[in-house]
C-alpha cells in the first residue's frame, strides 16, 4: 500500500479526520494560549468568584475569580507537554533498548524481561507514584517517571518485533551468517514495528493526558497556581457545594482530547490491519432463485431419485463497496445414493465453498443462491436456518481438512463426541458415552473408553482425523462430506484414513462427497468425478471415463501433473500460471489464459457445458476430440 492510498483510506473513515482536526485545534490552542486566552491564567478578580458563564467569562470563574476558559487553554499546554515528555522518554529509552535486547537475546534479555514483567504486573499508578517519590513532585519530573514506565511497554513491543523478524529471516534464509545481521534486522524491523509503535504512541498520549490530570489532581504533577486540567478538577471538588458547574469544563476537555487520541489511534490501526469480523455463526442459508437454464449436469444415475440434486448453485463475496464476485458460479450436479462423488480442482477453485454452501456454512459476508438443493426429497434452497440445522449432523456429516484445527482444543474429545448425541439425539450422559465408545471402535481407535478423556492435542494427526470421522458419523448420516480429508496428514497415514472411509461407506451405506486436489484419492475411492476450475464445473463423468479419456484440457493437465508409478523421462509436467481471482477471469472461458489449446473464440463469450455420453465438459473444442497425450503441451509453455 502506498502512502497515497493510505491517506485516502484514512480520510474515508469518518471519525479519524474529525478526531485529527480536533487534536490540531487542541495543539494550536496550547501553543497560542498566551495570545488566545482572554485573561491571565493564575490571577483572578477576587470580587467575582464562582460565577456561571457570562459574556465576560465564557466559562465562568473559579473560587478565586480566575477565568475558567483561560485556565482551560493553559491547561491544554500542561496536558500536551506532559504527554509529550512521557512519550519522548518512552521512545528514547524503549526503542533502542528493545532493539538491542531482541538482537542480543541471552541473559541480559531474560533479566530485562523479568523486570519488565514485574513492572507490568504492578499497578501503573502506584509504580508512577513510587518513582515520583524518588524524583520529587512537579510536572516534568512526574511525567518523566511515567515515561520510564511507558518505556517498558515500548521495549516489549520492539523486542517482540525484533524476535519475529529474526525468526522470519532465518526461515526465509535471508540471514545466513554473521556480520550483516544487525543491518538486515534493522531494515526488517523498522517497517514492521512502525505501525504498532504509532498505535502505541497515540495510546500513550491518550493515557498520558489522563495520568497528568490524575497526578496534578493528587498534587504530584503541575503545582498550583499553574493551570492544569487536573488542578482545575481539584478546585472543582473543593467548591462542589457552591459551584458545581466548575466540574464540567476541565472534565470534558480531558474526555474529548483522550477520545480524539483514541479514535485517531483506532483509525491508524485499521489502516494496517483491518479487523475481520465475518463468521460462520451468521452464515445465511441459500436463497432460492429461479433457474435460468437447465444445464447439462453431472452424471445422472438411471432410475432412482438421487440423494442430492443441486442446480445453479452460486456463491458470491463482496470485493469492494457495492461489488460482489462469484467464487462459485452455476454449479449443478446429482449425487446418487450409496455413491461416492469426487470433487477435484486446485486451491481457489471453489470446491470447499461449494460443499459448505450446501449446508449453509459459508461465512458471513458470503451469499449463496441456488435454483434447487434437493436433499432426500427436501428442498434446502430457501430453507430457514432452523431447517438446515436439522439436516446438519443428523443427515449430513462433515469431515474437515485439518483435524487439529477442526477439533476444539479446550474440550476432551469425549465431550465433543457426546454433545450432539445428547443435544440432538436426546441420549443420557451414560448412553452417549457408550455410543461414543462404539464410534471410536468403529474408526478403529484402541482403548476407546480411555481415549474419550483425552484432549485433541494428545492425538496424532491421523488419529485425530479418525476422531473427526467418528464425530461426522455419530448420528449415522445419509451423506458424508469429506473436505480434503487427508491433505493435512502424513503421507504414511493418508492411505489408512482412505481405507477407513471406503470401508465405512460400504458398512453404513451412505453417500460420500469427497473434496480433494489429489486425483489419487479420487481414483482410489470415487465412482464419479467433478472437476472445478475458477468456480465452475469444467468436466464431469465417471472416474473411469475421465481418467481414461479426459475431454477438458484442464482435466488432462491435472492428470498429467499427477506422479504415477511408471518411469517418465524429464520433469513432472505442471500447468503454468494460477487460478484467476474471482471476477477477474474475463468474459470467455476461464481457463483460456492457461490453456495450450486456446483459440480466439474461447476468449469471446462464456462457454457452456456440453453433454457427453458419460458426463459433460465445458470446452468449445470438445467436438474436435482433442488428444492430450504426451506432456509437451504442458511443459512447452
Amino acid at each position, binding site marked *: 500500500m502506498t502512502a497515497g492510498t493510505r491517506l485516502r483510506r484514512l480520510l474515508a473513515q469518518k471519525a479519524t479526520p474529525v478526531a485529527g482536526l480536533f487534536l490540531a485545534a487542541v495543539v494550536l490552542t496550547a501553543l497560542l494560549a498566551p495570545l488566545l486566552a482572554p485573561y491571565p491564567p493564575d490571577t483572578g478578580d477576587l470580587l467575582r468568584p464562582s460565577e456561571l458563564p457570562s459574556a465576560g467569562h465564557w466559562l465562568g470563574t473559579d473560587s478565586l475569580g480566575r477565568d475558567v476558559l483561560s485556565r482551560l487553554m493553559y491547561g491544554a499546554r500542561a496536558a500536551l507537554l506532559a504527554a509529550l515528555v512521557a512519550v519522548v522518554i518512552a521512545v528514547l529509552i524503549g526503542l533502542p533498548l528493545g532493539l538491542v535486547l531482541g538482537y542480543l537475546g541471552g541473559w541480559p534479555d531474560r533479566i530485562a524481561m523479568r523486570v519488565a514483567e*514485574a513492572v507490568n*504486573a*504492578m*499497578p*501503573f*499508578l*502506584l509504580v508512577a*507514584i*513510587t*518513582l515520583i*517519590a*524518588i524524583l*520529587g*513532585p512537579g510536572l516534568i519530573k512526574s511525567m518523566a517517571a511515567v515515561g520510564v514506565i511507558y518505556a517498558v511497554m515500548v521495549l516489549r513491543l520492539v523486542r517482540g518485533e525484533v524476535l519475529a523478524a529474526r525468526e522470519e529471516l532465518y526461515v526465509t534464509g535471508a540471514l545466513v551468517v554473521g556480520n550483516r545481521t544487525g543491518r538486515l534486522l534493522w531494515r526488517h524491523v523498522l517497517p514492521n514495528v512502525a505501525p504498532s509503535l504509532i498505535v502505541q504512541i497515540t495510546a500513550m498520549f491518550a493515557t498520558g493526558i*489522563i495520568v497528568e490530570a*490524575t497526578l496534578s*489532581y*493528587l*498534587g*504530584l504533577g503541575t503545582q498550583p497556581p499553574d493551570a492544569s486540567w487536573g488542578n482545575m*478538577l481539584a478546585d*472543582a*471538588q473543593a467548591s*462542589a457545594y457552591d459551584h458545581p458547574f466548575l*466540574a464540567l469544563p476541565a*472534565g470534558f476537555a*480531558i*474526555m474529548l482530547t*483522550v*477520545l480524539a487520541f*483514541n479514535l485517531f489511534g483506532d483509525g491508524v490501526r485499521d489502516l494496517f490491519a483491518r*479487523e*475481520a*469480523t*465475518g*463468521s*460462520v*455463526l451468521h*452464515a445465511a442459508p441459500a436463497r432460492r432463485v429461479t433457474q435460468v437454464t437447465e444445464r447439462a449436469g453431472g452424471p445422472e444415475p438411471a432410475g432412482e431419485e438421487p440423494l442430492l440434486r443441486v442446480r445453479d448453485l452460486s456463491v458470491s463475496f463482496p470485493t469492494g463497496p457495492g461489488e460482489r464476485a462469484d467464487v462459485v458460479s452455476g454449479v449443478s450436479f446429482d449425487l446418487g445414493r450409496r455413491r461416492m462423488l469426487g470433487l477435484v480442482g486446485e486451491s481457489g477453485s471453489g470446491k470447499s465453498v461449494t460443499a459448505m454452501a450446501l*449446508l449453509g*456454512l459459508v461465512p458471513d459476508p458470503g451469499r449463496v443462491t441456488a435454483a434447487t438443493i434437493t436433499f432426500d426429497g427436501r428442498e434446502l434452497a430457501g430453507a430457514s436456518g432452523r431447517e438446515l440445522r*436439522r439436516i446438519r*449432523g*443428523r443427515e449430513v456429516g*462433515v469431515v*474437515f481438512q*485439518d483435524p487439529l*484445527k*477442526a477439533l*476444539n*482444543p479446550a*474440550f*476432551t474429545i469425549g465431550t465433543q463426541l457426546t*454433545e*450432539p448425541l445428547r*443435544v*440432538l439425539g436426546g441420549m443420557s450422559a451414560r448412553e452417549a458415552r457408550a455410543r461414543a465408545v462404539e464410534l471410536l471402535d468403529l474408526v478403529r481407535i484402541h482403548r476407546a473408553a480411555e481415549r474419550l478423556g483425552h*484432549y485433541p*492435542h494428545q492425538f496424532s494427526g491421523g488419529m485425530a482425523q479418525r476422531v473427526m470421522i467418528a464425530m461426522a458419523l*455419530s448420528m449415522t448420516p445419509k451423506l458424508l462430506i469429506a473436505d480434503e480429508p487427508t491433505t493435512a496428514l502424513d503421507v504414511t497415514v493418508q492411505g489408512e484414513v482412505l481405507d477407513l472411509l471406503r470401508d465405512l461407506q460400504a458398512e453404513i451405506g451412505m453417500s460420500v462427497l469427497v473434496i480433494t486436489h489429489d486425483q489419487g484419492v479420487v481414483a482410489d475411492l470415487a465412482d464419479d468425478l467433478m472437476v472445478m476450475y475458477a468456480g465452475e464445473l469444467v468436466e464431469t463423468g465417471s472416474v473411469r471415463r475421465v481418467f481414461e479419456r479426459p475431454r477438458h484440457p484442464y482435466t488432462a493437465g491435472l492428470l498429467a501433473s499427477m506422479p504415477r508409478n511408471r518411469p517418465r523421462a524429464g520433469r513432472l509436467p505442471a500447468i503454468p500460471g494460477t487460478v484467476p481471482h474471482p471476477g477477474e477471469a474475463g468474459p470467455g472461458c476461464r481457463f483460456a489464459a492457461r490453456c495450450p489449446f486456446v483459440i480466439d473464440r474461447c476468449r469471446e463469450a462464456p462457454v457452456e457445458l456440453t453433454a457427453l455420453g458419460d458426463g459433460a465438459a465445458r470446452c468449445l473444442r470438445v467436438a474436435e476430440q482433442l488428444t492430450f497425450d504426451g506432456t509437451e503441451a504442458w511443459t512447452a509453455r
Partner: protein
Amino acid sequence: MWRLVITRLCVAVPMIVMVSTATFFLGALSPIDPAEFVLGPDPTQEQVDRVRQEMGLDRPVLAQFQEWAAGAVRGDLGSSVFTGEPVSATLIRALPVTLSLTLGGLVLSVLLGLPAGIWAGLRAGRLGDRVTTGLVTVGQAVPNFWLALLLILAFAVHFRIFPAVGYVPISEGVGPWLHSITLPSIALGTAAGAVLARQTRSAIIGVLQQEYIRTALAQGLPRWRVVGKFGLRNAAVPIVTVIAFEVASLFGGSIVVERMFSMRGFGSVTIDAVLRRDPDVIQGVIVIAAAVMIVIQLVLDLSYAWLNPKVRPS
C-alpha cells in the same frame, strides 16, 4: 495443581525481595532528604544532623537496608517518621478500604463489560456492535476521578442518596458498607468495564473465526449452544488475562478515587508518604502491593490451567 502453587510461591519470594530492594536503594539515591521535611523550611545544619541521626539516615545505606530487611522478615516494616505509627498497623487499616473499592470496581466492570463485549462480539460489524463500541470508546476516555466527582455532584450533593465522603467497614454491616462503596465502585468500574468489553469483543470475534466453531455448527448444534458452551470457554483465556490486568489497574485507580471520597485507604497513605518523603511507609506500600499482585497472578495461573488443557500438568 499443588505443584503450580508451590512453583508460583517460589517465584514470589525472590520477586518481593527484588521489588523491596529496588525501592529501597532507589529511595536512597533520591536527592530529597526526609529530614528537611520533618524540620520545615530553613533548618540549621545542626538540626538536620540531629534529625538524620535520630532517623538513622547518617549510617551507610547498606546497614540501613540490613536493619529494615531484618525487621521485615519478622513482620516489622518500620514506622512512620511523622506519626511514629508502625507501618504494618497503618497498612492493615488502609488495605480493606482499597481492596473493597478494587473488588467493587471489579464486580461492576465484569457485570458491565462481559455481557456488553459478548453481545457486541456476536454482532460484529452490525449496528448493535457499532453503538456498543462507540459507548466503550467514550467510556475509556472518562477519567475515573472526574466520574467520581460527577457522581458526587449528582447522587450525594443534588440527590442525597449516597454519602459524598467516608468509608464504612464491613464489620459494621454489609448494607452500610455497600452503601459507602457504591459510588466509588461505579467511578472505578466504568472505564475498566469499557476496557473489558473491548477485549471481550475481540476475543469473541477471534474465536468465532476458528474452524472448531464451524465443526460444532456442522454437527448440527444450535447456535446458542455453540457460543455458550464452546465459544465462551475458548474466549475465556484472553478475557481472564484482561481481568487480571484490570485488578492491578483498579488497585492503582482506587488511589485517586479514594482521595475524591476522602477515604483513608492505600492511596491516601501512599500520597501522604510521597509528599512527606516518609521512607518506611513508601517501602511498605510497595511490598504489600507486590504481595497482593502476586496472589492475583497465582489465581490467574490456576484459572489458566483450568481453562486451557495444554498447560495443565497431567
